[in-house]
């Protein structure tokens, strides 16, 4: 399919231009705003959960308005706590961490960085966004049905999620809507990934060989391949789960179950099958969220270190290795599930193996900074923060990768700490770094560096204050997904939970700095020049924001690799990819 022919921009109606647009730049921003909205909702939910954990009887009058049954008198019920954690996890993992780095930045930047006028399949792209939008609507609609959102967490383990409303509140309509939302999301993600693959392989400018691609493009491309392979499996799993709920099948329901005193007349299914299917998606998903982040961070670190990305090739090979191995490690989520223990060992070795390319990427980032001339913009600060939390979160993974240790730590707060460090924080830090970096290009104005730096310091220190103590809760054996701490051995941990809650409230409030900076700068910020950070890739060769056709003077021709910073003998300290200037060794 070729590029879409468009009439003069002025004649386009508002709806066609900003809502049902096929322009990748609009769609990218739409995805970004969708993720921003989801992140704010998810953060508010985490506030409510944290408050409840610190002070179980705290009254939040607003909450009883939202759900009189879930929070009678403003005090959260245990089941509504589980509903909130389900939606928090689902929003963050699917609608924020999967959407913003890949569909958000990726859509906006991929054609710009490849030197293309548009994504290869613009209409599919629009469909991808609106499918994702519908998925978000369906997910949030669970707040407004009498049943409330489901209580099974973002992993929706069967049979809790499969046997219907008998298993608990939220397990009727709420769980069905959740499955529908995830199925729609899978569809949207797969449509988007096809487009990313087609664009990367088919729409590159002349001279843009695979060895000239910015690492961001490599990351988006590899992630798209992973999405295609893994979200398709989740889609199938969701259909099976839905069939168990409404079609009378028994994929995940074994014989002889007695729930709340009622014998369930099904049989022949396997609860572990859901876990295998879910984690076959779920582990690649972790890397689906983090690979684009790795690309973004490599890109930004190189720019603000004024130095070529150290180990450009090894970064690509590492990302490929991570992508490949990520499909072979899902069993490390299942060491205590009842899976064959010999399989457990195999998954342990493969998991340790995936730590190797991950470690190589860290070496590469440190190597990029080594010998550089570091410019501490807000974007750079978040990139540095990313490296720090990625190291911390990666190392706690070495505990969880060993089955005998995982047996103790599994489903404790140690896991919460690990996944938030490596996925939540690393992912959001990359989104922040990317936002401060590309905001000028996306909206044509600069963000306030002062507010940005305040935002960074509060977020970085706050993040460690929230999540470092959660490792200690894990040592003490504090199980996750507990609505209240009533066990004797957990009661002494309540002060620690209160500390975490306070840290979370402050860190969360600091995000208001970001939001206000974002919207203020969008309308009032200083006008952005074409290339404010002195970057080398193609998005900086066009105006900020770019014209509708991206490259007004025809498609560019590429002469250099993406990270020619500090080139000896060159006039400036950077050589842009489309500069015909000859450089030594370039």
């Amino acid at each position, binding site marked *: 399919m070729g590029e879409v022919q468009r009439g003069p921009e002025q004649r386009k109606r508002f709806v066609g231009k900003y809502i049902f647009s096929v322009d990748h730049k609009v769609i990218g921003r739409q995805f970004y705003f969708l993720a921003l909205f989801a992140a704010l909702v998810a953060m508010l939910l985490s506030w409510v959960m944290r408050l409840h954990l610190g002070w179980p009887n705290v009254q939040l009058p607003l909450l009883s308005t939202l759900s009189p049954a879930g929070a009678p008198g403003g005090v959260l019920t*245990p*089941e509504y706590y*589980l509903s909130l954690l389900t939606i928090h996890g689902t929003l963050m993992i699917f609608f924020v961490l999967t959407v913003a780095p890949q569909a958000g930045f990726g859509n906006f930047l991929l054609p710009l960085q490849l030197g293309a006028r548009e994504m290869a399949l613009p209409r599919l792209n629009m469909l991808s966004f609106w499918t994702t939008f519908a998925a978000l609507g369906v997910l949030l609609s669970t707040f407004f049905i009498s049943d409330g959102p489901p209580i099974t967490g973002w992993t929706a*383990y069967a*049979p809790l999620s499969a*046997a219907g409303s008998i*298993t*608990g509140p939220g397990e009727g309509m709420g769980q069905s809507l959740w499955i529908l939302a995830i199925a729609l999301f899978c569809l949207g993600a797969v449509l988007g990934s096809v487009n990313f693959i087609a664009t990367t392989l088919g729409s590159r400018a002349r001279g843009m060989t695979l060895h000239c691609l910015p690492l961001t493009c490599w990351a988006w491309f590899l992630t798209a391949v992973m999405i295609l392979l893994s979200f398709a499996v989740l889609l199938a799993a969701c259909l099976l789960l839905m069939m168990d709920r409404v079609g009378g099948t028994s994929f995940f329901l074994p*014989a*002889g*179950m*007695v*729930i709340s005193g009622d*014998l369930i007349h099904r049989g022949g299914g396997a*609860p*572990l099958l859901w876990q295998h299917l879910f984690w076959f998606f779920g582990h690649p998903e972790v890397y689906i969220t983090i690979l684009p982040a790795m690309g973004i961070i490599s890109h930004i670190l190189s720019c603000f*270190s*004024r*130095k070529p990305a*150290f*180990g450009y090739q090894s970064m690509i090979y590492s990302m490929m290795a991570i992508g490949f191995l990520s499909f072979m490690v899902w069993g490390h989520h299942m060491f*205590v*599930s*009842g899976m064959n223990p010999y399989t457990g060992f195999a998954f*342990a070795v493969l*998991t*340790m193996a995936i*730590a*190797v390319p991950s470690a190589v990427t860290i*070496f590469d980032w440190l190597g990029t*900074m*080594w010998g550089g001339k*570091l410019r*501490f913009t807000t974007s750079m*600060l978040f990139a540095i923060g990313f490296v720090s939390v990625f*190291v911390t979160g990666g*190392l706690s993974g*070495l*505990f969880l990768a*060993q089955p*005998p*240790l995982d*047996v*103790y730590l*599994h489903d404790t707060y140690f896991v919460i700490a690990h996944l938030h460090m490596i996925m939540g924080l690393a992912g959001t830090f990359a989104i922040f770094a990317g936002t401060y970096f590309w905001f000028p290009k996306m909206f044509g104005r600069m963000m306030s560096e002062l507010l940005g730096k305040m935002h960074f310091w509060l977020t970085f*220190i706050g993040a*460690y204050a929230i999540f*470092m103590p959660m*490792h*200690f809760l894990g*040592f*003490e054996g504090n199980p*996750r997904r*507990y609505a209240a701490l*009533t*066990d004797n*051995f957990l009661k002494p941990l309540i002060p620690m939970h209160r500390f975490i809650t306070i840290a979370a409230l402050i860190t969360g409030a600091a995000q208001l700095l970001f939001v206000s900076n974002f919207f203020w700068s969008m309308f009032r910020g200083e006008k952005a020049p074409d290339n404010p950070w002195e970057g080398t890739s193609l998005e900086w060769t066009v105006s900020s924001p770019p014209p509708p056709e991206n490259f007004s003077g025809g498609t560019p021709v590429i002469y250099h690799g993406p990270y020619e*910073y*500090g*080139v000896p003998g060159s006039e400036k300290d950077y050589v842009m990819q489309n500069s015909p200037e000859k450089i030594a060794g370039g």
Partner: protein
Amino acid sequence: MGLAIAVVLTLITAVSVSLISAHFWWFPVDVATHGPAIDHLFTLTFIFTGAIFVLAQLGLAYLIWRYRDRGQGGKATYLHEPAMLQVTWTLIALILFVGLAFMGHRTWAHMHYTGAQPGALRIEVWGEQFAWYFRYPGPDGRFGPIHPSLMDDSMGNYLGLDRPHDQASKDDIVTATLGIPADRPVQLILRSKDVIHSFFVPELRMKQDLVPGMEMPIHFTATEDALNHDGGRYEIVCTQLCGMGHYKMRAFLQVMTEKKFEQWLKQEAAMQ
């Protein structure tokens, strides 16, 4: 700015490492014979990851401080791909990480590749929303068959036993506490009536899911020392999200001397 980040990174590293090495918040006492091996593996992993943590965070701090742009003009070092260096550290990482996996393997094999010793005390552990039940086979050493259609909590037939008709069920003992003797191998057979639960006793360093439709055997031996802490009473908690009452699904493990255990079991049998 470079100095500020370097200082903050150093502080975060120092605080984290000192809180962990001071054991302010730490693992509970360990009362299973397989525990020391796990704790040893934990210690090794702490040392290993701790060293990398300190090196990486301080390395990052150093680089940030050392290579900050001092505004003196000039260019950064122009460097792309030092291949030898990269091959070297990839190999080092490979050997270290995969080595760690193999070290953990011995402990895992010991716990899971072999069954319980012959003569181990066999106990069924049952989970339901949101309670635990434990079944002892009684003098005949056999568990009677389970009839899901007979399960009725209100009648006290939690596990669906047909005592009038099934010989093996007659002497089965169903309890609400998991009583075990110290210093004797125990095999637990984990089963669930409804959804997935997980059996976790932090002091045993043990966790295993209870999956409906499956029977999951695990085995351990409580040490003599288990009698000395908290009167030998340890909390059993559910660690797999099982519904609204998940957080209060709890029972107790009571470790006793062999003699006391026999007495206790007799008392429980009399109450069936």
